[in-house]
């Protein structure tokens, strides 16, 4: 999507000049400082690190990276699909379109299921957000958001509220303010907090009622396109993926980037946790989906085929984690056997790019959203 590399920024008073402006979050000798970009330039001009040359710092970076790779390599004693050799092959899947939801006037960019397993919310390029009853196909609610490209929408845990965000850089009535578009949003475990990802390179945690920024997450060097919260049993972490080809895992309380994965060769469009919380999958413009094991700290599977040449935009797991549904720009949904690494099935039906796939909370159905203006429910 974009090739620009820049430091992430948030708003606030500069720790040097005091003026409220976009801040750069940087470290000098392990101390975090938040200066506006002007003061950073000024400080760089004055020369800050006596005795440490750029070359020696770069050498230390390279040697640390090499050491990390060596450590990760030592654990690669077997491949995932080898361990999966002993389990049975998947039978043919009887999944087909059961509902087609028509009503959007333009590309459907995002959708989310309500915890009641029947309602869903979808958002579109035409600025409309619609709440549907998935069983009866009736539209329960429709609102117009004052911006086009509503790229993200999410259902609150209680089912009483919906959040959305997009090109206006905001998430719902200015709860969240980024300095670039909002690409993804999700409620945390309550209706009171929202986690957002943005084209400005950062992720942020907000209090819904006050609109206050609770925590910000800096580390990506380009647009963040997707995020996913770890299943509640595993604790307070989330994973994000973006245009810098990296997938980062974050500690929600400290704001710290605790793990980082860089194996895709193009933008990561979507990230999703495996149901146990010990792994996650990613979908990328490089036409592959990948599976990362968090406890081994490395990629353990690549879902690809010579015949699959279009970018993957979205992924989600079935309830047991055995199936990975992935939506592609060639209008199809590929169903991958997560453990064996093979493709189990292809779902045809959409007449344009698939922008989002989501399995329902009880695992009985898959919903897909597409640029063909429709949503489909498969079961």
């Amino acid at each position: 999507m974009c090739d620009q590399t820049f430091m992430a920024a948030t708003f606030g008073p500069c720790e040097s000049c005091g003026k409220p402006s976009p801040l750069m979050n940087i470290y000098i000798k392990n101390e975090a400082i938040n200066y506006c970009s002007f003061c950073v330039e000024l400080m760089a001009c004055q020369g800050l690190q006596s005795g440490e040359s750029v070359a020696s710092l770069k050498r230390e970076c390279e040697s640390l990276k090499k050491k990390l790779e060596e450590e990760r390599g030592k654990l690669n004693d077997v491949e995932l699909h080898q361990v999966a050799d002993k389990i049975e092959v998947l039978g043919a899947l009887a999944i087909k379109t059961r509902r087609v939801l028509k009503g959007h006037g333009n590309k459907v960019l995002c959708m989310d299921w309500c915890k009641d397993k029947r309602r869903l919310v979808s958002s579109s390029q035409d600025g409309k957000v619609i709440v549907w009853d998935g069983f009866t196909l009736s539209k329960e609610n429709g609102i117009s958001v004052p911006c086009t490209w509503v790229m993200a929408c999410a259902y609150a845990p209680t089912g009483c509220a919906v959040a959305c965000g997009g090109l206006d850089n905001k998430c719902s009535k200015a709860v969240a303010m980024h300095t670039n578009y909002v690409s993804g949003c999700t409620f945390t475990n309550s209706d009171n907090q929202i986690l957002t990802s943005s084209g400005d390179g950062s992720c942020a945690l907000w209090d819904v009622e006050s609109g206050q920024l609770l925590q910000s997450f800096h580390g990506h060097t380009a647009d963040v396109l997707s995020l996913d919260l770890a299943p509640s049993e595993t604790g307070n972490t989330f994973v994000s993926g973006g245009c810098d080809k990296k997938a980062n895992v974050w500690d929600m309380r400290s704001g710290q980037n605790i793990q980082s994965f860089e194996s895709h060769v193009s933008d990561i469009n979507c990230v999703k946790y495996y149901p146990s919380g010990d792994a996650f999958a990613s979908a990328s413009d490089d036409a592959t989906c990948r599976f990362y094991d968090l406890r081994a700290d490395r990629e353990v599977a690549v879902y690809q085929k010579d015949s699959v040449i279009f970018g993957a935009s979205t992924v989600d797991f079935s309830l047991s984690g055995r199936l990975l549904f992935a939506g592609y720009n060639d209008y199809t949904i590929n169903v991958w056997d997560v453990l064996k690494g093979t493709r189990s099935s292809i779902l045809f039906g959409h007449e344009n790019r698939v922008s989002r796939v989501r399995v329902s909370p009880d695992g009985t159905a898959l919903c897909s959203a597409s640029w063909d203006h429709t949503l489909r429910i498969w079961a």
Partner: protein
Amino acid sequence: RCNHSSNYSSIISSKLIHQLRIEAGMERLKISLTAADLVQYCQEHKRSDPLLTGINTSNPFKDKKSCVLL
């Protein structure tokens, strides 16, 4: 005359080193162990995965008129 880009690079490098040190400190497990756990999770939950088994007698999305051959 100060060298803007070299001092800016040193800021970025410092930040990267800080991050890499945190990542280097992580305790990692062998794939033979972690993969076995991933497989076990799938096996334990496969019977309650409707999209996998295809069996769901009370699935309201499925057409009531069709027959399910067991």
